[in-house]
């Protein structure tokens, strides 16, 4: 016949073997998750860069545009 305290002794022995107490399991898990997430949160959000080709100047004073300016002076 097993004594009432015998089972407890076996469990605490097991947790000692794994090195992780039942009561500290989630604490350890939480700390691990924070460590994994932290570097992602630090990286800055990158704004969309439309590119040099897209934002380059397209306006040039062609003869067509010069004519437009001339006729608008009337």
């Amino acid at each position, binding site marked *: 016949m097993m004594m009432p305290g015998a089972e407890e002794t076996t469990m605490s022995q097991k947790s000692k073997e794994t090195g992780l107490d039942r009561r500290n399991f989630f604490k350890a898990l939480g700390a691990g998750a924070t460590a994994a997430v932290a570097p992602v949160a630090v990286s800055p959000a990158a*704004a*969309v860069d*439309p*590119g040099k080709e*897209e*934002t*380059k*100047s*397209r*306006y*040039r*004073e*062609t003869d*067509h*545009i010069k004519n*437009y*300016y001339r*006729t*608008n*002076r*009337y």
Partner: protein
Amino acid sequence: MARMKFLCDADRCIECNACVTACKNENDVPWGINRRRVVTINDGKPGERSVSMACMHCTDAPCAAVCPVDCFYTTADAVVLHNKDLCIGCGYCFYACPFGAPQYPKLSNFGSRGKMDKCTYCAGGPEVDLSPAEFQKYGSNRLAEGKLPLCAEMCSTKALLAGDGEIIAQIYKERVVKRGYGSGAWGWQTAYRETIAI
């Protein structure tokens, strides 16, 4: 660097709406959207004035400030454009714009999340210049062709000015100095006889 601007000479605008029609045709603008509109105040009363309105290509554009996906950008010509591939159709820009420039295609009665559409100053979009993809999304790219927006180029009374802000401001100044207060458009007194003060 030239800064592209629109300037509407309200004394010359006759509310013919040709700029609106030309814009729709040139850029293949979807149903339910007018990139340019003619607004008339005191309609039918003495002192009636009309002004043609579109995107004013603001220096510090409110549409760009509120966009959650940052799809607006300003070109070296100071033209405010947007990227329809990034646009999520949230509608913030529509509420932010004081001129009602960004609009949405009304494809269905409820829940449609299209891409915002706005005046591009006939400067296309982020796609390759004058490509079919650019025309399909944004309309023509007249600036790349060495021309100015069609709405201004075909204005019959030369009310709507477009181009380098310095030059069109000078043109407007010359007009005001020459005509004084009031309209200098041709045929004004023929149309309204002596009842109109120039």
